[in-house]
């Protein structure tokens, strides 16, 4: 056999073809926030000191609670923010990107300044703020995992909201009727899968537009659960709508870590299941045969088909799996948090989970972080309401949604989803 030698190609020329297009989005956003900071912290002058409570009474290790002078802190933070903004403008002027950690540091500083200002003369309960963040994020994270799986395999899952709500409803009813929490969880998963079946059947088998099916399914689930709630559950709430609740389990040693311990390791079993689900989704998506195949189906279904992968089947079962995971998130509303089903109790969490999927660039870990961010925004509004912030509560109610819009529209810009997501695979 002859050996073919690669002919030398003149490809060695320096690759100077990539140019960074200057994007002024980041520095302009930072500038806006700096102006807001100056307006609130300096012009909206508030006297006094702000106390940051870092430990709860039950904690083993008690951290001191620092006290910051409100006005001076506000001035210092505003100056630092202004300097950081100037630096961001300088970098973009030089055609360089503003790194993501820089924006994160900016955000933390701004938030510290805001809390200091808002809670002048009062105490900010930091552990409470963070515990609430995790609590509110749990359904978002489950929903986002369902979204990641579904979109990675090529089906846009707008029906997360419906899956959450169906999960919440059926887990409440089943756990209440049987008295068994684990049967409730199972029921939530089944309900999520049933919603997924409809989505899968219409979008994969009959090529109906996936977004339209998803939206219609959400409306359908809202209608069905509201109907059964007002016609059946309210007739006999003792039997059908008083499920037991999961109690918090503290994990020894880990639970003693200052600040983070009570936040992460004094939670209900659903939260621990969530940790496992996130880790499993991440590992399986990028390191197993299942993940490789399902990503192939979501990127280039024809190519997957030509190597003998059953595209329709892969999509169908993974969308079902996504439904099961989102359904678990729904169970958290009833069995983890509230303890009863209420009409439309998911209140748009599914859509925020969908935003977390996009903001997290279809990556399970990043989507989780995005969901935590949205959870934080929601909880911030609660906490500020309690400590009596000068900002009107109606305005604070918009906060999570404003964060969502900013995050998805402003910061995601260039992210690229699975290439075949939303496109039906039609074989000739």
């Amino acid at each position, binding site marked *: *056999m*002859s*050996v*073919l*030698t*690669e*002919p030398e*190609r*003149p*490809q060695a*020329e320096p690759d*100077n*073809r*990539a*140019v*960074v*297009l200057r994007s002024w989005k980041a520095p302009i956003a930072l500038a806006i926030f700096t102006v807001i900071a100056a307006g609130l912290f300096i012009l909206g002058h508030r006297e006094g000191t702000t106390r940051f409570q870092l430990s709860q009474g039950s904690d083993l290790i008690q951290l001191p609670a620092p006290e910051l002078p409100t006005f001076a802190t506000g001035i210092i933070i505003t100056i630092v923010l202004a300097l950081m903004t100037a630096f961001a403008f300088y970098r973009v002027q030089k055609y360089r990107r503003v790194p993501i950690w820089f924006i994160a540091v900016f955000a933390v500083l701004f938030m510290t300044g805001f809390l200091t200002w808002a809670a002048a003369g009062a105490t900010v309960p930091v552990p409470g703020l963070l515990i609430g963040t995790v609590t509110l994020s749990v359904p978002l994270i489950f929903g986002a995992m369902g979204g990641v799986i579904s979109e990675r395999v090529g089906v846009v899952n707008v029906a997360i909201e419906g899956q959450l709500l169906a999960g919440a409803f059926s887990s409440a009813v089943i756990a209440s009727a049987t008295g068994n929490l684990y049967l409730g969880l199972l029921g939530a998963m089944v309900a999520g899968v049933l919603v997924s079946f409809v989505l899968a059947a219409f979008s994969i088998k009959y090529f109906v537009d996936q977004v339209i099916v998803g939206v219609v399914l959400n409306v359908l689930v809202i209608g069905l659960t509201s109907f059964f709630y007002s016609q059946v559950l309210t007739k006999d709430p003792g039997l059908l709508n008083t499920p037991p609740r999961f109690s918090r389990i503290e994990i020894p040693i880990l639970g003693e870590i200052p600040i983070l311990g009570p936040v992460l390791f004094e939670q209900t079993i659903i939260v621990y299941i969530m940790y496992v689900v996130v880790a499993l989704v991440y590992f*399986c998506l990028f*390191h*197993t*045969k*299942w993940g*490789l*195949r399902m*990503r*192939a189906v979501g*990127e*280039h279904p*024809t*190519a*997957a*088909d*030509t*190597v*003998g*992968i*059953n595209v329709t089947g892969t999509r169908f079962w993974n969308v079902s799996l996504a439904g099961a995971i989102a359904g678990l998130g729904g169970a958290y509303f009833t069995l983890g948090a509230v303890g009863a089903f209420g009409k439309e109790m998911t209140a748009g969490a599914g859509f925020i989970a969908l935003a977390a999927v996009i903001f997290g660039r279809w990556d399970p870990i990043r989507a989780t972080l995005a969901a935590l961010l949205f959870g934080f925004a929601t909880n911030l509004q609660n906490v500020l309401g309690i400590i009596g912030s000068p900002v009107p509560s109606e305005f604070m109610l918009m906060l999570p949604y404003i964060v969502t819009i900013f995050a998805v529209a402003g910061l995601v810009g*260039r992210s690229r989803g699975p*290439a075949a997501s939303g496109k039906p695979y039609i*074989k*000739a």
Partner: protein
Amino acid sequence: MKLELRGITKRFGALVANDHIDLTVQSGEIHALLGENGAGKSTLMNVLYGLYQAEEGEILLDDVVQKFAGPGDAMNAGIGMVHQHFMLIPVFTVAENVMLGHEQTTFGGRLDLEAARAKVREISARFGFHVDPDALVEGLPVGVQQRVEIIKALSRDAKVLVFDEPTAVLTPQETDELMVIMKQLRESGTSIVFITHKLREVREVADRITVIRLGKVVGEASPTATNTELASLMVGRAVELTVAKNPPVLGEPALVVRDLSVIDPQGQVVVNNVSFEVKSGEVLVIAGVQGNGQTELTEALLGLQPHVTGSIELDGKSLRNRSVRKILDAGVGFVPEDRTQDGVVAEFSIAENLMLDRSTSKPFVKAGNLQLNFLANFAREKVTEFDIRTQGIDSKAGRLSGGNQQKVVLARELSRDLRLFVAAQPTRGLDVGSIEFVHKRIIATRDSGLPVIVVSTELDEVVALADRIAVMYRGGIVGIVPADTPRDVLGLMMAGEPAPGTGEAA
């Protein structure tokens, strides 16, 4: 392995794509399947590969009848395919693409990437490929991507390899390399089916040739047959392979482009500092392998690209930073390269398509109302003039064949009062008859004294049409050379090497 197809028939509705096709490929043979676009070659191979199910006929490997329910079965039986549009996942690495579908795993279901890398390295070494198993496929040049396809097929122990139009995306040099690889594969005992419509390649590597026309086998030929013989067998009548044209009557430079750069939304410079001019009465062909900036260049001329620097002047007036409407009004006629996507609206009638870019003014629109009688007369006239084969001017454009759709586009653009004509890949995917027609029209446009720009990736077409040739490579113009430049020089230029004597890019 010996492959035999017996009486394969495949129908799509009323259309018979394959009509009782018989084909035998001996072990260790390169068998060329020659036919025009739409003759049914790819359909036949998709049947062989299990992607389509044939209505009649059977597939035999070493005289054993096979049943393929899907590509998986075909692969297990030892059939591999190098697809025309690569079946690779752009965001996966080479190793991941090669392992996809028959993954090996280690402890805990973890993918055994190391085994896949070793496989890629082993096959690469066997054929002298230089392929990095960890490179992302989307970052590789198309020639290398094709090798990944070959590695993918060989990693499954393919004994019969089907190459579906493998040279469409390659430079002439890459094509030569592919020919060497195919011969190597033949020596190692692989049977090869080589699908193409390019005569030169067939004669170079094929041991036997089967010609298909309109879904039927119309004959066998030996590789010693002449181009004219093969072409007339393929088309079914005598074909003129050259375009008859007189020497150009050159006028003043009409289109002057200086230092034109185009930056795409990802920040890539896709057209890099390009300067050229076109005289009236001249055809400038922009040659080059697909994806070297030709698309973006023509779109920039039309005002379709957002980030453009440099200057574009037509008859002394700047076209840059003007809306598409203004540029069209300035007399630029444009045949887009993707006919079905950008050329016609499939759901519109032929008449409506003929007035698509003239909906703003008289005589087609008066006081906001379409002048339907005028349009009908206009459309009937153009259908006759451009020989558009249709049942009537009210048929939908989507129902026309590719050649007739392209005639609609030409009729629309050429019936305007033009100052410049730009045709991007005007004959891609057309049958030989339509190609002849399009070529004649382009030359007629030139002879009427207009400057003409044609973008083409086919060397035959480049040489046939050009008065001058500008070769593009990675966004830049490698050189602008006369039409009688030898093909091997053009080939080297398409791989980025400046023509001897011209020095750096003009």
